[in-house]
């Protein structure tokens, strides 16, 4: 038992008091203002559908894969979307390998609800043959480093991965048109997923003194705050999901204030994701352009002689 005690991260009494006192004068320990987001950097891997997002010190990696399966019986014409989270022990000393803990399940549910309930990903276009074959999209989120606010970072990673994922094209064939032929990427260009809008999760932290509100809490602030709320909104101003599990109570006007703040932040984050995805797509498209093998440079000087 002592060995495990030696490895956990601790917060001192001094830090707890300091974070609360500093917030009274609207100062956060990393120098941000209460409603300022940390810097987001979105990177992509070599494969389609892999992304790595860094939000301050928090790092999350997202990976999207697809498989042909039989659809659920009550939804024969829709594809399947599932999210798996893995809290790697290298992210935080309190993460244990093996079964996902409460935090991991909650994070998966928030992202899942944001994508599924708001119908951000068009599942009907994933159906190839009703009741027989549909695409099952699987999003894997690996938490690599916990610097606070895992939900937001994981959500951005999931969206970035979904936007750059390409699924193989398939057509119906066989004698009675009941067989599905999956074309390899060299023969037919793989297709992107239909994503209607981007639901962005924005997290808030509540502190007990004077109902102070901060956006995008860091690891230290999360240990000190009294309650948290995650709102998932999109750039059009639609509220996709709200999650507030336990913690202290907040008055209604604070919730409305949070929603307004979230909508304004969502617009800028959506733009950032779309720009990053655009850059990667252009780069990949340029790599695929095949140059004619017989075109060679002509030496102009020869003609002058």
């Amino acid at each position, binding site marked *: 038992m002592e060995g495990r005690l030696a490895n956990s991260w601790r917060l*001192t*009494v001094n830090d707890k008091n300091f974070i609360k006192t500093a917030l009274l004068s609207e100062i956060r320990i990393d120098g941000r203002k209460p409603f300022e987001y940390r810097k987001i950097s979105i990177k992509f891997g070599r494969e389609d559908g892999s992304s790595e997002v860094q939000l301050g010190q928090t790092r999350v990696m997202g990976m999207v894969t697809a498989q042909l399966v039989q659809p659920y019986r009550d939804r024969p014409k829709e594809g399947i979307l599932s999210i798996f989270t893995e809290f790697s022990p290298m992210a935080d000393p309190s993460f244990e390998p093996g079964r996902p803990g409460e935090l991991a399940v909650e994070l998966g549910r928030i992202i899942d609800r944001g994508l599924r309930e708001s119908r951000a990903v068009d599942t009907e276009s994933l159906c190839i043959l009703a009741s027989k074959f549909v695409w099952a999209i699987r999003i894997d989120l690996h938490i690599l480093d916990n610097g606070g606010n895992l939900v937001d970072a994981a959500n951005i990673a999931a969206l970035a991965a979904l936007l750059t994922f390409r699924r193989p094209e398939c057509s119906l064939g066989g004698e009675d048109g009941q067989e599905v032929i999956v074309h390899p990427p060299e023969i037919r260009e793989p297709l992107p997923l239909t994503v209607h809008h981007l639901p962005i999760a924005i997290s808030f932290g509540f502190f007990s003194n004077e109902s102070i509100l901060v956006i995008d809490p860091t690891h230290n602030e999360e240990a000190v705050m009294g309650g948290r709320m995650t709102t998932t909104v999109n750039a059009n101003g639609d509220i996709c999901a709200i999650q507030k599990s336990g913690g202290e109570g907040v008055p209604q006007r604070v919730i409305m204030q949070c929603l307004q703040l979230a909508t304004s932040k969502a617009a800028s984050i959506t733009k950032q994701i779309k720009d990053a995805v655009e850059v990667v797509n252009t780069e990949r498209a340029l790599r695929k352009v095949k140059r004619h093998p017989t075109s060679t440079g002509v030496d102009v000087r020869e003609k002058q002689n």
Partner: protein
Amino acid sequence: MENKQSSSPASFVDSTVVPGDVVLDLSSMTNQTIKLGGGLRQDCDAISATKAGTLRFSKPNKYWIESSQKRYVPCVEDTILGIVVDSKADNFLIDIKGPAMGFLPVLAFEGGTRRNIPKFEVGTLLYLRVVKANFGMNPELSCTDASGKAAEFGPLKDGYMFETSTGLSRKLLSSPACPVLEALGKKLSFEIAVGLNGRVWVNAASPDTIVVVANAIMNSECLSGAQQIIMVDHLLKNIQ
């Protein structure tokens, strides 16, 4: 490669070595006493490195390996910052960012007797000295210096504590003063306690001074002296 090993030991000083490198050959240095510090081991006539880092030499005869890690390995006579985790009958259990918990005997205070045992709540930050540190055993700590006086050891009130690497803590404690601390000290007044286990505590009159000092120190790890001064000027300009 064999030629390099038999040349003078000065060739390895101040260069990076990895575990297994033979850094000194004693057969070429007779009638000399040399002192080996941390990270070096003697195998008959060869001195080899057991830690990755830079080999340092100080006159007349001390050699050691310097490296910076986030983990702390307790060493005797180090001054560190520890957090109280639990209190038992004889000791307080202290977290010192090392492989095992440190034990602080309840009597290891100036004028400490069984009647006036201090009460520390869980989470109190203490400035301590390492008395015993053996492999496999919990290190023993103390709140007094070697002669039994309090000498600034003990609980730290208010302020803010943050974690750094062990290399940065050593740089902050070096003399002459580290450029970042000098530059900050010219404009701001603050109090600072540095633990060799990679913890630093800052206190000042206003919260924004504390935040600036903490962020300046955290950013200064990879910067050279001149860059540190530029960074501090930049940060101070942003507040004023």
